[in-house]
């Protein structure tokens, strides 16, 4: 087994080394300690190195220069994962989420533009849940009720049953949850857009009209109406066709979908602006500035965009930053940070 310890700089840290040396893993380990899950892989077992029996992550957080919590995350093969705060295990892992907010910016973020609506809902939910625990519980309850409602539709269809008594209960559970989720997402997007627009201008250095709009079936009808009105259709499909689980975000440039009409450069600017705006927005909502993790950004941005990005990161409001890159020199040449504010960790084979 491999065992490593690090002491980080309060402002800026870089992991450097050749590809495949484990730079991304380092960032993901920090993300895991902050949020209780991997940014890249939802299958925890696959995070255990080779044939090792377990993985263990431990961090001592520091808040306002004072010792904060000690967080431990561990997974032994064949067992349930454990997260402990100051040696006390969480009863529900999900309760760790939001304790130490972290935002990762990584190459696969492009999926937010290119992928299906689920990616965008997940992103929106992760952002809101970071500062609103209630919202997270609502989402989890909604998912559970939705699964049960879909199963009930299936049972009704297969048994050729007309009795809606049980289905009606799930409707009653889903209706207020859907309305609450809808209101929260609407409120979030309205507050988020101005932050995003300002950053897009700063990163791209251009005055291109970009936009984000929230799309939900609940904009036209309340959840109660949707469930009632689509019942026949739902019964035949054996699943719930309407609700906040179908919400989406429209990303546009010059009023056209950026996925189709944006140049590669515009798409990159869009994604970086979106993630940095997520960061800036979160600062206004949480007590501690989130930890920012930047995976392989230097390779992905042209020089002018990279310099714009670094200038933004140097602003006071940005908290602790971790970055990965193949070249230590490039890091030193592009970052606008003073020497004592930078730690570079050159990763090697052992």
């Amino acid at each position, binding site marked *: 087994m491999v065992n490593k310890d690090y002491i980080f700089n309060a402002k800026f840290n870089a992991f450097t080394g050749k590809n495949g040396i484990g730079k991304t893993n380092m960032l993901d380990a920090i993300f895991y300690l902050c949020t209780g899950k991997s940014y890249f892989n939802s299958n925890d077992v696959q995070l255990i190195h080779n044939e090792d029996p377990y993985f263990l992550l431990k961090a001592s957080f520091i808040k306002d220069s004072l010792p904060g919590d000690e967080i431990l995350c561990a997974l032994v093969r064949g067992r349930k994962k454990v997260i402990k705060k100051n040696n006390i295990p969480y009863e529900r892992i999900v309760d760790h989420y939001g304790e130490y907010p972290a935002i990762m910016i990584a190459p696969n973020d492009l999926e937010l533009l290119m992928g299906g609506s689920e990616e965008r809902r997940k992103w929106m939910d992760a952002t809101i849940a970071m500062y609103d625990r209630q919202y997270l519980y609502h989402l989890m309850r909604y998912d559970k009720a939705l699964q*049960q409602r879909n199963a009930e539709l299936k*049972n009704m269809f297969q048994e050729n049953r007309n009795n809606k008594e*049980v289905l009606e209960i799930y409707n009653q559970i889903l209706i207020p949850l859907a309305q609450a989720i809808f209101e929260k997402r609407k409120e979030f997007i309205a507050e988020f857009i101005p932050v995003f627009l300002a950053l897009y201008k700063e990163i791209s250095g251009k005055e291109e009209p970009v936009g984000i709009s929230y799309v939900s079936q609940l904009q036209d009808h309340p959840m109660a109406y949707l469930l009632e009105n689509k019942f026949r259709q739902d019964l035949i499909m054996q699943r719930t066709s309407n609700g906040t689980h179908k919400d989406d975000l429209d990303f546009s440039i010059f009023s056209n979908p950026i996925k189709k009409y944006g140049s590669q450069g515009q798409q990159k600017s869009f994604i970086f602006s979106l993630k940095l705006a997520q960061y800036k927005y979160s600062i206004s909502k949480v007590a501690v500035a989130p930890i920012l993790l930047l995976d392989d950004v230097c390779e992905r941005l042209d020089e002018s965009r990279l310099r714009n990005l670094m200038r933004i990161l140097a602003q006071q409001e940005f908290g602790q930053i971790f970055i990965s890159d193949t070249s230590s020199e490039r890091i030193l040449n592009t970052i606008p940070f003073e020497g004592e504010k930078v730690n570079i960790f050159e990763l090697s084979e052992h």
Partner: protein
Amino acid sequence: MNSKIVEGAVAQFSKLPGIGKKTALRLVLHLLKVDEQNVYDFSKALLKLKTDLHFCSVCHNISDETICSICKDTGRNHEMVCIVEDLRDVIAIENTNQFRGVYHVLGGLISPVDGIGPEDLNIESLFVRFQRNEIKELIFALAATMEGDTTTFYITRRLNGSDIKASTIARGISVGGELEYADEITLGRSILGRVPYKL
């Protein structure tokens, strides 16, 4: 293994929840060492579970006779009925010594995902008790989960418009909402500090 008989016994033991092959073998080896009478008593006790044990015809609690000792107890308040998922909850609540009413054991919770509907549970017999005007107050002591909520919801909806008093035990009683794991003091306090449920 070179004995089909031992192998067969190990296979039977390892069918039990929480018993792996290793533990099963240990138990079988232990039984080989004890007196024949002991093993005979052990197997007889097991058989009796199936041949002599009844489920109470009133509350569905386990019972040696048609009606269980709790339902027979005239010292208890038969107008106050605590609705629970299964036998383990009855045991947990009885251990608190805080509850002097009677029970109704549903035998599960509504969960379409697991193929369990109201007709699979002891719900109709509850309404029979209710129609006979035997019940004045219901206490729902079901798990604080979606399934528990759904079941409470289902039963209370059908009681709509009646003058039955309904309440749920104070929530957040334990890890994951499982009643069985709540320690006795917390559970006793929950039974006393109930939250009224609006019908």
